[in-house]
């Protein structure tokens, strides 16, 4: 299951080495402050979990790293160099690949076309260079088999795969094309228990292959299964930032459920 990962993972990755460093990063949309004072380090070979309720600023944080919106406060360094991404292409060129929960794939397109979308293999140069269709089908099929996604027909539209399989195709694609940092946006949110398991196993495999993984979720149980470092966001700020050794599942769950606010609420309700 990890063949694809270990083969394609960048051999220059050293576990523990910081890949993305964010310092006091903030983002405002007009008068609205979406994110403030975020300090986050994504290290190779570690899963950094970002937890938070709806509207906590998780999506904004991803969008900054993925190049969809540039940040406007603080600094972000990738491999030690300060960057500010203007487009997803720039982010991809830095080895940062993002897998979105609902828009990971183009459902009407074939599995193999999705696998190679944006990085098609062509023979020759120029706009009319022909696609190496046979090669792409073969590689996509092989890579997917290696991770346990067996598609009956590599030519079937990817919309016919299950949600978990689609996530896996998207993750495999990112890794195959040399991602060093993998951002997973709520990968398990819409999935059943078994499907989530497949995705989590694959997340752990990516970590073990030396990639830096950012795992965005609102499910502390899933996060605790794979995470090395936990950050909880609330109203655009980090309210918890701890290593796995310093935090238990109970505390994560309690913080996610509302933490002190919840305690207060329970007091109020008991009166």
């Amino acid at each position, binding site marked *: 299951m990890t063949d694809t990962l270990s083969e394609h993972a960048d051999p220059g990755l050293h576990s523990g080495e910081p890949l993305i460093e964010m310092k006091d990063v903030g983002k405002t949309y007009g008068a609205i402050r979406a994110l403030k004072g975020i300090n986050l380090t994504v290290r190779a070979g570690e899963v950094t979990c970002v937890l938070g309720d709806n509207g906590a600023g998780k999506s904004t944080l991803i969008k900054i790293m993925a190049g969809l919106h540039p940040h406007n406060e603080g600094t972000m360094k990738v491999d030690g160099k300060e960057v500010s991404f203007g487009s997803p292409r720039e982010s991809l060129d830095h080895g940062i690949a993002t897998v979105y929960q609902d828009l990971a794939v183009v459902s009407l*397109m074939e599995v193999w*076309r999705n696998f190679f*979308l944006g990085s098609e293999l062509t023979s020759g140069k120029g706009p009319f260079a022909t696609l190496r269709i046979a090669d792409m089908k073969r590689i996509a099929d092989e890579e997917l088999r290696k991770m*346990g996604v067996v598609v009956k027909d590599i030519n079937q539209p990817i919309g016919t795969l299950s949600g978990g*399989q689609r996530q896996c195709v998207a993750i495999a694609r990112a890794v195959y094309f040399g991602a060093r940092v993998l951002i997973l946006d709520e990968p398990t949110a819409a999935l059943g228990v078994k499907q989530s398991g497949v995705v989590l196993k694959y997340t752990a495999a990516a970590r073990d292959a030396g990639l830096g993984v950012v795992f965005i979720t609102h499910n502390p149980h899933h996060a605790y299964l794979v995470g090395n470092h936990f950050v909880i966001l609330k109203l655009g700020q980090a309210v918890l930032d701890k290593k796995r050794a310093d935090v238990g599942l109970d505390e994560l769950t309690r913080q996610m459920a509302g933490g002190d606010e919840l305690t207060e609420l329970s007091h109020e309700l008991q009166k």
Partner: protein
Amino acid sequence: MSQTTTTPPSAPAEASNRVTLGWSNRLLARPEVGALVAAIVIFIFFLVVAPAFRSPASFFTVLYQSSTIGIVAVAVGMLMIGGEFDLSAGVIVTTAGLVNAMFCYQLGINLIVGAVLSLVFSLLIGFLNGYLVVRTGIPSFLITLGTFFVLQGANLGVTKLVTGSVSTPNINQMAGYGTLDAIFASSFKIGSVTVEITVIWWFLFVALSAFILQRTRIGNWIYAVGGNADSARAVGVPVKAVKIGLFMTVSFLGWFIGMHTLYKFDTLQAGNGIGNEFLYIIAAVVGGTLLTGGFGNAIGVAIGAFIFGMTSLCIVYAGWDPNWFRAFLGVMLLLAVMVNLYVKRLSTARKVG
């Protein structure tokens, strides 16, 4: 990467509950199949009821009629696969011809210069359509409805201002006419059959479009942009450039047919072309293109245009009142939309829980 023999333990369970589509479903899931069946049925129907249709000559007349719509429909189909619309495609044809004719006639310049100028102008309109759509995020239906009205008005207004009437002067005595006429509006004989050159051009453009859509990276991007622009953008597809390029392709082929119309009739009515944008869209939709984008192909669009050409002429061949033609076209469109909906459901239905 080279061997695929090891199958992980989780795979069999996943595979066992998947349902395989039968060959008939697979065939139905191709965009052009519905149109092909319809084309064959209509073809046989008119062979029976319209004796005048039963000759190679009328078949090639039908092909010519189809090509005049089909050439622009090639681009409109690609644009619709890319998830956008162009309502200005019909009047761009006339605008292109008018620019060429009036510019050259008034200033006494070689027609070839005017044709190039007209090409640049048309591409600019396409660029503007595309740029406004990707820049503002306003649906292309509205943006191109706007340019449609602007061009429609300007075609008439400018023509009247320049020539004093609503048609352009005859240009067939001007320098460069022979070359352009040969390229855009000539015909040749094969035996007793006259073949219009636009038929050849149409086949070429369909082949090129089919090649681009299926065999090139740009084609892949067009499907992705129409199917899910956000995920296409996330994997690095230049969504905006693709869309602008598609709008410019429409205006390029619009210009091409504009040139054909001008050099075929040597003079142009400024009010021409209105309503044709719908014919292009109908050809594309009847050919299996999804209105919402991401699905369709060039062959389907060509068959859609052929159905248009066949019915518009065969109604005359059959001796019926040609006014019924549009009613027939409407019925075809409705049927096609329903078939498309069914096909889309079939091809995206999830087989695994």
